[in-house]
Each structure stands twice: as C-alpha cells, then as structure tokens.
C-alpha cells in the first residue's frame, strides 16, 4: 500500500497537535470487541476486532511426537494467514513474509512467556505428546494486525478445552473434556506494538499510520508477579533505527500504557 504524500503530510500535521484522523490520542487503542466460539469444531476459537480490523483465531490439537530437545513437552505451532479477503494489498498463495513474521512474533510471545504449560501436554515421554495449533486468519486489515492477532491467539487458547483422547484406539474423539488447556494464567503476556512516526510514538495504528511509520516495536508484556511489567519477547520491525534516549522513552510509554490496558486485556482473555 502506498500512502499519498499529501495524506502522509496531513497525518504528521495532526500528530504534531497530538491528534489523529479518527479522533484518538496517540496512545489510545480503538474499541475492542471479542466473540468467543466462532467454530464449534475447534478446541477454542474467537473473533477479535480493534475498530475495523478483524481476525479469526482457532485452536486445534492432535497427537504427535516430541522434538528431540523437548522429549517431555507438547508442541506449539502458530500460523497466520493474511489472505486477499482482508485487504486489496494481500495476495493469493502461500504465506508471504508479512504473514510468516506475524505468526512467528505471536508464537514467540506465547512460547517465551510460558503461557502454555507444555510439560502437561506430554502423554508419554519421548514418544507421544499433544500438538497445539493456533491458526489466525485476517478478515479485515485496518491496521495493527499484530496486536489484534496476538490477543485473538490468547483468547482462543484461554477458551480451549482438551479433546477426549481414547487411549485404546489411540484416536481423538470428536468431543471435549471439561478440562481447559493447561495454562500458566499468571504468565499471560499481551503483545503490544508501538510505532514511531516522525518523532511521535503511536499505538494501534491505522493502515496509513502503519505504512508511514519508520519502525515498530512489538513487545510481549506480562506481569512480573508484583504488578510490574515483564517483557518476554521483542521484535523490532521495519527499517528505522532507535537511539538510546528514544529506547528509554519507548519503554516509559510502554510501561505506562501496559499498566492501563493490561487489566482490560485480562478481562477479555478470562471473560
């Protein structure tokens, strides 16, 4: 997507006055809407909207073998599909780099926070473990897919129920137990992305804002156990480089914003 120069200039003029086209402040998220259970065939599923940006996410599980370096743990796999349904900018075909990066950033946010208790997903050490697949589909891209997809993945996981596994037939029945997926609830980490546009830091950008930003920085941030922020994964995206002062400013904004939004995120995740 190419933003016309006149529009980019106008966005900057607005930002100088601390304003945005849609009336939000620079550190303000759009309205978040969540619908849980969009597929009754999934272990857990949801749709999440930030304003006009919408994604669907679902969790499926099956039985697999453990990786050589984690013989006693289940496997996690996160994937994102940014198909042409969601935007005229997306193309048909196998996932492009934008979808691959998105999936990997969300994956690391979940994996490194240890939100899922993968050890509890081991059935027989070295032989048989649960595979957990989180699949995310962009339905409408109006900016900030990264954070919307991250929240959708968390909500789908938080609502997932363990399928019934029949040990005799070694097959998964088409029904669910009452048991939730084993989660370390206290490790919940929300992926927050900050964008730098000119000398402004903006959250939850529109497509145009996203496009003209020099860089973005996505951080999975959870609670350190004492009400403080704990960062478990970071991705700096786009070309722009960050100075030392800027980095410390970013982290200040992050901490402040996280304190404000995290209680709301928790409510969305735990219902």
């Amino acid at each position, binding site marked *: 997507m190419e933003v016309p120069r006149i529009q980019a200039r106008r966005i900057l003029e607005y930002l100088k006055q601390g304003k945005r086209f849609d009336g939000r402040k620079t550190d303000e998220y759009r309205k978040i809407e969540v619908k849980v259970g969009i597929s009754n*065939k999934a272990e857990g599923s949801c749709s999440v909207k930030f304003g006009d940006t919408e994604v669907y996410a679902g969790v499926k599980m099956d039985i697999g073998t453990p990786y050589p370096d984690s013989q006693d743990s289940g496997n996690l796999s996160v994937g994102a599909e940014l198909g042409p349904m969601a935007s005229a900018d997306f193309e048909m075909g196998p996932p492009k780099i934008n979808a691959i990066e998105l999936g990997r950033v969300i994956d690391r946010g979940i994996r490194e926070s240890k939100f899922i208790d993968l050890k509890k997903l081991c059935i027989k050490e070295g032989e048989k473990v649960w595979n957990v697949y989180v699949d995310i589909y962009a339905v409408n891209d109006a900016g900030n897919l990264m954070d919307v997809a991250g929240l959708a993945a968390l909500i789908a996981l938080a609502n997932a129920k363990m399928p019934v596994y029949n040990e005799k037939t070694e097959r998964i029945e088409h029904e669910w137990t009452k048991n939730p997926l084993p989660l370390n609830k206290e490790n919940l980490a929300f992926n927050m992305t900050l964008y730098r546009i000119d000398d402004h830091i903006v959250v939850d950008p529109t497509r145009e804002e996203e496009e003209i930003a020099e860089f973005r920085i996505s951080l999975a941030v959870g609670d350190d156990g004492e009400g403080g922020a704990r960062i478990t994964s970071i991705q700096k995206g786009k070309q722009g480089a960050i100075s030392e002062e800027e980095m410390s400013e970013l982290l200040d904004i992050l901490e402040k914003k996280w304190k404000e939004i995290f209680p709301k995120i928790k409510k969305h995740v735990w219902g």
Partner: protein
Amino acid sequence: MNKKSLYTKREDGRAFDELRPIEAKVGIIPNADGSAMYKSGDTVAIAAVFGPRILHPQHMQNSQKGILRVSYDMMTFSVYERKKPGSNRRSQEISKVIEWALENCVDLSEFPNTVVDVFIQIPQADAGTRVAGINAAVMALAQAGVPMTEMISAVAVGKMDKTLVVDVNKEEEDYEEGEGATDIPVCFLSKSKKLALLQLDGKISPEELKKALEMGRKACEKIYEAQVKALKQVGEERE
C-alpha cells in the same frame, strides 16, 4: 425394489424438505467492495468481493469483458481434524465449480480487462460448505454493485437410503444404512430457474434425481428470500 426406506426421521427433527435455520448478513468486511455471511445450521460461510479492478498479469486480461475469479477455502479449525492451511485439490475444484455457477448471474461486458475477485472462507463446517459459500458470495456480489442479471441460491440435497432430504448436515452426509448417503449440491438461478451447479456423490436413479432437483429448486426459493431480505436490510441501514 419397493422396500421402504430405512431413513424415516431426521436426527435433528427437521421435515425432509426443511432447511436448517438460516442467518444472512450483508456488509461484514469493510475493506471489501461487497461482503456477506451465510449461516445454515452449524455451517458458516463468509465471502468478500473486490472489483471490478484491473487484472494483473496483463496477459490474463480479456479485452471483451471482465473476468470472475473465485477462491474457496476452509479455515483450519472449521472441522474436527485440523485442515492443513492453504488451498488443496478439493478447494481448487470447488472454487472452479462455484466460479462457473456465478458466471451465470454476473454481466461483466462493460468492464473489459478487469477482474472481479470472490473470496470465500469457511470458519465453521457442518456439511454444505460450497453451497453456503455460493449463497454468501452472490450477496457480496450484489452489495458490491457488480452488474447482475439474476440472483443465485444453492443447497445440498441428499438421499439417505431411499429418502430425499434438503440441506444435508454432516451427520446425514455420513449416513451408512441401506443405500447410504448421496450428496447432491445444486444451485439455481432466481429468474430462469436454471441449474447452475450440479454435483453428485453416491447412487441414485434418474427418477429420484428428478425429484431431488425439484426439492432443491423449492428449497432455493426459500434461500433466495433470505438473501433478498439481508440485502434489503443493508440498504435500509444506509438510508
């Protein structure tokens, strides 16, 4: 030969000619030129239409008229056994038969060198996903303002042992007693009442097929009403 059918009652209590509860909504994807959701029982399809827009690569363009391009896929978590992400042979074939069906109702003669893209996704499947996809797609085309000569409605007719039913669900699709299940997705044009899509898996006599098509035609009239109602709703919301 004249034995009674083993299938005397539908598991979900429906009459043999009864559709599952329908929900239809137009205008669900703001980025698209037209979009819609069609739900029949537990099967949900969403569709987005983009275009007419210039077709790339140029050598695929038709200088006489615009072309229609359909892509149908199921989300990985729409079924019990996770579907591998991305298209496969099944989804490509279904995309093509849907494309052939929809070509009967759009008129792209005024839009040479362009393409109208139709994207169909299935978030939740309980049989009849291609027909749900068509029902959603045609509403999305109408909302997009693509010139259309008529509407189109689709349903899967089934034969359970010797009993004909409409709007087959997954449980019925897997019926194995007697002659088993025959699945017959059909799609009818709203004005000419012509058949624009026909597939069949199973076994059936020519006489039974005639009856099945008649049932499908009647069912499609009810679906058409739901589609028109949803399209009118979005029109009224705008006013």
